[in-house]
């Protein structure tokens, strides 16, 4: 046993990657803020939990799986909204939906009153919670309305770090945001692989085939085809830096969701008789052609 660090092999001296994915929803949100600048809104001890889960024999969580932190990033007021990936697959219910909506609305009001407030959404979510289906769907509509008001005045950065990914109604929220950041472990898609397999059979989409799924929904492919703005490693520092740069860039001049012609042309360019694979699609829908 030695106490001298010099005696350690050099591999131990190399900078270790600081995994973001291994953090829970609250820990993830905290990584973005200037030190000691944040506070939690409607935290666990406010006990605003879902009233719909207990009657269906599902244990509720005290924050309904949605963590809202308000603080400063590079000195600018920012709200970070984080979906807890481990609770009900990061799903969106009535309460979590209302929390997101209210947070975006307050950010919008503050910005319009001269206190510029940005938003960061950590979307580890399978979409609407099936145990609160209709209320969750209504919540998606409300979140989108709030997001469209806020994005005019402040940048909204979405992140899919993994490994749940961002699916269902919440993928619409991601697509309408100002910027989308992904890691190679992150995923983005409207219908999740299990839903497609359930509806169209395993020969259409095998939800157990991880290579296939990540080749289609994964961060690398989404970035290569211009559907994500930044691709980063699963590293707290890298992710934080990417989000900070985008917040600094401000409101974008053109939103992805406004480029209707571009995406119509993209669909028109695909011959449905041909079995497209991810590499072909990457060439046809190259991100350079989105500018």
């Amino acid at each position: 046993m030695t106490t001298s660090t010099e005696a350690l092999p050099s591999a131990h001296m190399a900078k270790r990657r600081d995994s973001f994915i291994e953090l829970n929803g609250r820990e993830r949100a905290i990584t973005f803020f200037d030190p000691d600048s944040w506070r939690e809104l409607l935290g666990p001890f406010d006990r605003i939990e879902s009233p719909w889960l207990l009657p269906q024999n599902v244990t509720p969580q005290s924050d309904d799986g949605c963590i809202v932190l308000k603080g400063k990033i590079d000195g600018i007021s920012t709200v970070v909204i984080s979906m807890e990936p481990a609770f009900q697959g990061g799903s969106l219910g009535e309460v979590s939906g209302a929390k997101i909506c209210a947070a975006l609305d307050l950010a919008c009001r503050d910005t319009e009153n001269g206190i510029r407030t940005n938003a960061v959404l950590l979307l580890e979510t399978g979409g609407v919670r099936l145990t609160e289906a209709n209320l969750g769907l209504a919540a998606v509509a409300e979140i989108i309305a709030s997001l469209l008001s806020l994005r005019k005045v402040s940048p909204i950065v979405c992140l899919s770090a993994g490994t749940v990914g961002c699916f269902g109604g919440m993928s619409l929220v991601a697509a309408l945001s100002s910027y989308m950041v992904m890691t190679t472990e992150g995923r983005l898609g409207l219908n999740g692989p299990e839903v497609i397999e359930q509806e169209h059979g395993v020969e259409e989409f095998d939800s157990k085939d991880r290579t296939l799924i990540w080749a289609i929904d994964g961060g690398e492919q989404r970035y290569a085809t211009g559907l994500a703005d930044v691709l980063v490693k699963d590293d707290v520092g890298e992710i934080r830096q990417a989000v900070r740069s985008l917040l600094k860039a401000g409101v974008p001049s053109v939103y992805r969701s406004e480029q209707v012609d571009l995406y119509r042309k993209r669909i028109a360019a695909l011959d449905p008789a041909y079995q497209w694979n991810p590499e072909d699609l990457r060439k046809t829908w190259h991100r350079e052609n989105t500018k």
Partner: protein
Amino acid sequence: MEILNFKFSAKNKGKAKGRAHVGVVGSGDLEVLLEPLDASSAQVRIRTSVPGFSEQWKAVLDRFFMKYDGAVAIEINDAGATPGVVSLRLAQAVEASEQ
């Protein structure tokens, strides 16, 4: 779903300096909310998705309160955690409440 309530004698009112929240209601895990209580007892409420294990819960809590004498209210939201995980989360909550 099962809701369980337990009470333990616990005299130490100043033991927990503040409230603490640890864990997540994810598969095999649990969430613990711990708050100081102005009483000479400790209360525990458990909501678990796995019914039929009240004896095991009592055994884990008996063991915990053999060493811990803080007058606290503990709420547990459980998604099928094993006794080992429960004990670790309780210890983590206690540590967080004493900081």
